[in-house]
């Protein structure tokens, strides 16, 4: 197994799919010589030329729609939005067009479109360049939402997303781009819609996404020293949401914590907790279910404020201790 970075894994997935399938192309701002704001597509222009690494003017609203139109015609566009925060401009094409065209036309059309966008805080880029947008389009049927957490699943999920016949919002995390991880030489896929048990444990189930998976793993190490055994389930796909694995896990651990970077209110945690509350796993609970989400604030610029705005390793540790301890409403 090789070690490559998350960024390289994403690039590899794109390169391999583009070699294999002429219909796949990448479009977005500054993805050519510049390699994109985070260097994800660095070098690809050379191999694929300016029509398959198609640089766009700053016109996110329309070029997302261009992706939709190309997808309707049988292409498999990958649209890069430089920062996930700018998906506000893509919103209409994503929400009202890509997500609905198939349904509205009675199944006449497929929209094999991938929208890739880096999200998340930690780079000091402040409120408009740091949001975790996982939950923004969670309420929109017709799209899929994928959040890879390491190089292995990033590559495997992106290939699955490109091969998927539905619009897929593929949310990368800026802080993960340079993280390394093992990856097979051979071609492989990580299927959409399948959460991953990152680590088994007995006392509590922590559901995570993206960067929070790393932080939960670190927290779990510490907690195990204290005798608290943690099971970590990395969602990978947020939509469609598959909670079977979580239910099974909760039946074993009897406790649930959902950790996510996005703002607490209206974030993904509510949905997961509600699903468990509605399932028979509910009967197995030994403790109330809890969430640890980002604070309900725009992401601030100052480093310490920024850290305080989203869950850190020590916050996870504290929250788990609190849940396991038992006097929740003291």
């Amino acid at each position: 197994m090789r070690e490559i970075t998350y960024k390289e894994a994403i690039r590899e997935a794109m390169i391999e799919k583009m070699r294999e399938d002429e219909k796949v192309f990448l479009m977005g701002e500054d993805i050519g010589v510049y390699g994109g704001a985070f260097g994800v597509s660095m070098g690809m222009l050379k191999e694929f030329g300016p029509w398959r690494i198609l640089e766009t003017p700053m016109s996110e609203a329309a070029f997302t729609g261009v992706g939709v139109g190309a997808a309707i015609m049988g292409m498999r566009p990958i649209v890069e939005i430089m920062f996930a925060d700018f998906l506000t401009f893509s919103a209409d094409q994503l929400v009202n067009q890509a997500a609905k065209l198939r349904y509205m036309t009675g199944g006449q059309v497929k929209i094999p479109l991938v929208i890739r966008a880096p999200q998340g805080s930690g780079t000091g880029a402040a409120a408009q360049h740091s949001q975790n947008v996982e939950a923004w389009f969670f309420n929109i049927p017709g799209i899929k939402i994928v959040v890879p957490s390491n190089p292995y699943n990033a590559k495997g999920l992106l290939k699955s997303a490109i091969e998927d016949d539905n619009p897929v919002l593929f949310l990368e995390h800026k802080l993960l781009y340079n993280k390394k991880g093992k990856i097979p030489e051979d071609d492989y896929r990580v299927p959409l819609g399948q959460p991953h048990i990152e680590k088994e444990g007995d006392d509590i189930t922590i559901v995570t996404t993206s960067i929070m998976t790393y932080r939960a793993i670190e927290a779990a190490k510490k907690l195990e020293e204290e005798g608290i055994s943690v099971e970590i389930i990395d969602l990978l796909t947020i939509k469609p949401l598959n909670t079977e694995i979580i239910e099974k896990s909760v039946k074993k651990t009897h406790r649930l914590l959902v950790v996510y970077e996005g703002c607490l209110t209206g974030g993904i945690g509510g949905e997961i907790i509600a699903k468990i509350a509605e399932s028979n796993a509910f009967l197995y609970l030994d403790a109330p279910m809890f969430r640890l989400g980002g604070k309900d604030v725009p992401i601030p610029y100052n480093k310490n404020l920024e850290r305080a705005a989203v869950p850190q390793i020590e916050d996870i540790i504290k929250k788990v201790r609190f849940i396991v301890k038992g006097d929740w409403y003291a």
Partner: protein
Amino acid sequence: MLTRDEKLAMLEKMLLIRAFEEKAEKLFMRNLVHGTMHLSVGEEAIPVGAIFAIKSTDYITSTHRGHGHMIAKGGDLKKMFAEFLGKDTGYCHGRGGSMHIADFGLRNLGATGIVGAGIPIATGAALALKMQNKSDVVLAFFGDGAANEGVFFESLNMATIWKLPEIFLCENNQYAMSSPVKRFVPTPNISDRASAFGIPGISIDGMDVIAVYETVKAAAERARSGKGPTLIEAKTYRFKGHSKSDKNLYRTKEEIEEWKKKDPITTFAARLMEIGDLQQNEFENMKEKVNAIIEEAVKFAIDSPEPDPKTVEKFVYADEKEN
């Protein structure tokens, strides 16, 4: 030059659209329609002239006021009426209704209810054609109101810089809902907006089906030969209200009457009669033929079954399990 047969075919298509719209309105009045509709009565010359000017293998994108586009492109009237009545036999199995009629087989990539949103989709389709080295073109219909949406400008810019095979055809019917184009477009013509991108911008009489035909023909040639897009503004008028709930408070009867004198069907028929291409009785026969087609299609639609409410979840995802 258009042959006599072609001209008659154009006239017949216009009649067909007119008859469809009038029938649609009647069905609506009879309370058979749950929803809204946007009729294109008065504007028939544009879809007919434009779609006759392109090949059947070329693509179009449509709008909320899209019945005429679909009919001109060869749409199946049965499926159209059935969709309008929300039937399972409709184009969209009753999911879409009047505003979302599409026929990908006929290369009508569909209508969107979000004004302006179809424009970048058309640009994307044109991009795909260019990437695939196809020689087809995309004809994008949109209204004067849509020409104020940011995506219109963004798309026109992209189509220009990439020299895409696309025709931007603005159906300027003088109003966006109740808003007169003069209030919100500060230049004399919407086609003036082409100058921002250095491409041809042409304003024509949208009541004149031949003018539409010729202008779109030239634009299609330009597009097909790799020279890029053209912005065409066809000036026309909507004889009916904007949608079901329109009280026409924003315009005068006189204005409507003035425009009705330019009715694209009667003026074209008169022209054809003048040059001896059409006799009054032929015209009457044509109308009767059209009415018969409409009646048959409506009957099909009325007799068709409703979709089963249990299938409401069908068609959300392309990879859903068959149910």
